[in-house]
């Protein structure tokens, strides 16, 4: 079979696909170049200077803080001095403790069916632990007092220690223990609390 004769001065070829690929490539190249130009602009030294300055300032601050810390870390008070502070604070706390306020709170909390026989307070690690001996008309009244004390914010860890029939035989004798933590009362002595001698004298 013979090919048909081509009489054109230049041979015909379909260049549309090649042109499309070239244009696409050129557009992609332009986009990449623009993207890189933006990146280069952002990375220029004058643009990143702020971050360098921030880093330098932080380095200086950290160095100064470490130096201040080393100075402040110096030798603190020795054990004897701390013990002295503790003892003085406990004396001041004991001195400023309001016993009448404690008795007033107990008066308000103890119900009429219970009679207060003995209050034995004692300091325990800077906190006041109360021992109460009460005479309750009924066993329920004694346990109701435990609940009433526990419901008061000033008392905590209220436990009955013993319960026995009163020798007279008509009531129950309860022994209770609890922590007394009034908001105005001193907290556990801390050696490093300022103004600890404020309330004395």
């Amino acid at each position, binding site marked *: 079979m013979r090919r048909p004769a081509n009489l054109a001065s230049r041979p015909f070829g379909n260049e549309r696909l090649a042109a499309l690929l070239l244009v696409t490539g050129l557009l992609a190249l332009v986009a990449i170049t623009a993207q890189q130009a933006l990146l280069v602009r952002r990375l220029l030294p004058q643009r990143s200077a702020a971050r360098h300055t921030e880093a330098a300032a932080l380095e200086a601050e950290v160095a100064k803080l470490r130096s201040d810390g080393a100075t402040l870390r110096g030798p603190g008070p020795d054990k004897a001095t701390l013990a002295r502070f503790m003892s003085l604070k406990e004396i001041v706390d004991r001195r400023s403790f309001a*016993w009448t306020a404690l008795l007033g709170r107990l008066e308000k909390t103890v119900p009429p069916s219970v009679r207060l026989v003995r209050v034995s307070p004692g300091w325990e690690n800077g906190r006041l632990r109360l021992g109460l001996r009460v005479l309750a008309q009924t066993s329920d009244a004694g346990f109701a007092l435990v609940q009433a004390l526990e419901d008061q914010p000033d008392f905590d860890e209220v436990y009955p220690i013993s319960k026995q029939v009163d020798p007279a035989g008509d009531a129950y004798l309860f022994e209770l223990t609890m922590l007394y933590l009034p908001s105005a009362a001193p907290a556990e002595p801390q050696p490093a609390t300022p*103004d600890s001698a404020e309330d004395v004298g």
Partner: protein
Amino acid sequence: MSRLVRPALLLLAANVAIFLAFTLPQTLQERSLASRVATLQSEALRERGQVEALRRRARAIQANQSDAARFFGEIAKSRQATLLPALAEVHQAAAAEGLHLGQEQYSRSDIKETGLVRLRITLPLRGSYGQLVGFLRRLEGSKSLVVVDTLGLTSPESGGEASLAIGLSAYFLAPPEGSGV
């Protein structure tokens, strides 16, 4: 179209060259800088906290020293200036409330770490509940360095007088060594 190929290739080559010579190293450097700044910020935060805690400790120590100095300078006094006036004040408070005093007991001990001497006083009292509370109120308002250590209240079975076993401590400065006091 073919005329554009050569400049496009040149532009591509330039892009690659700039990326390798500048963009890539600068990007890596910037990431490293960002990471360094983040680390420094966290270190600064931690150091600020530590220094603040140390400053608080230093202030507390200074305040304690100042309090201790004030305690010994203004509050704690010598035995001569403290003991008998304090006892007199306790007795006057009991008498003013009409309380009956029982047999008193005294015991002395040194609180070595403080340079103070403590005189424990056991004071049995009898009277009405109101009188006992009044006595305690007077002690609370006292100017003396007298501390109520323990309080044993025994209320009567029915009416009558309650009894109070009260443990007091009076504090005064230990005498200088060798003074023989």
